[in-house]
């Protein structure tokens, strides 16, 4: 948001691999940041490939505890982290006072059901794949209390519910010339 009130969108794309209960790899690229986030069940690594730097920290042993630790202790967020949590429903529905089925929509070529919810500070819209397997397709969160009501939106494509992972998927091996740097405490 500019001081003038003009709203600017920052877009990025993330590719995520999750293996429950305790592995995550998120590769994010976009106009603000290019970053790799790897969690192997013990260690969390943050790596900026272009800057050739990475930081590592010991992390809790479940995906949910790690996401909470990263957010509250390190101020680090995984792309769409709330949606990776196995308790995503409880997190998103926290404080929701009412909801509405808007109707049908097509998001990136997939027919979806469009639902909206209202909580004390945020309005939420969610689009779910129509049919027997209601995977989330899109989520838009509007923080309506802040000036000009900033929004966070994520569209989830290329779902693969039976992925195969290689030995390297959740392992971080620093490239030659990469420097290990500190993670400042919050």
């Amino acid at each position, binding site marked *: 948001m500019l001081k003038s009130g003009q709203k600017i969108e920052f877009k990025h794309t993330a590719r995520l691999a999750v293996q429950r209960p305790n592995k995550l790899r998120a590769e994010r690229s976009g106009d603000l940041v290019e970053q790799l986030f790897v969690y192997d069940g013990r260690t969390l690594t943050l790596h900026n490939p272009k800057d050739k730097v990475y930081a590592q920290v010991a992390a809790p042993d479940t995906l949910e505890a790690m996401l909470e630790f990263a957010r509250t202790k*390190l101020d680090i967020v995984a792309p769409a982290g709330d949606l990776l949590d196995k308790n995503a429903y409880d997190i998103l529905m926290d404080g929701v006072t009412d909801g509405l089925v808007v109707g049908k929509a097509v998001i990136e070529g997939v027919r979806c059901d469009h639902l909206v919810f209202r909580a004390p500070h945020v309005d939420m819209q969610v689009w779910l794949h129509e049919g027997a397997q209601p995977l989330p397709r899109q989520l838009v969160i509007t923080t309506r209390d802040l000036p000009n009501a900033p929004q966070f939106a994520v569209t989830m494509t290329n779902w693969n519910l039976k992925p195969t992972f290689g030995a390297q998927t959740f392992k971080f091996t620093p490239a030659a010339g990469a420097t290990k740097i500190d*993670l*400042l405490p919050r």
Partner: protein
Amino acid sequence: MNTTRILKALTVTAARPAGTPAVGTVVNALPAGCKPETKDGVEVQNFGGVTYRAAFQGNNLVYVVQ
């Protein structure tokens, strides 16, 4: 009068003229024209006698004045 102390103070003043950032200052970007060097075994960027060390602050890459 403790001349060593005064000399030290002068040296520090010379290395850090008025307007240079204090040790521990966190900046989001390095000044243009920084030169990489190694200080105490750590890679830092030097700009006019002020050295900056890279660190993550949350998801952001920042530089801390040494």
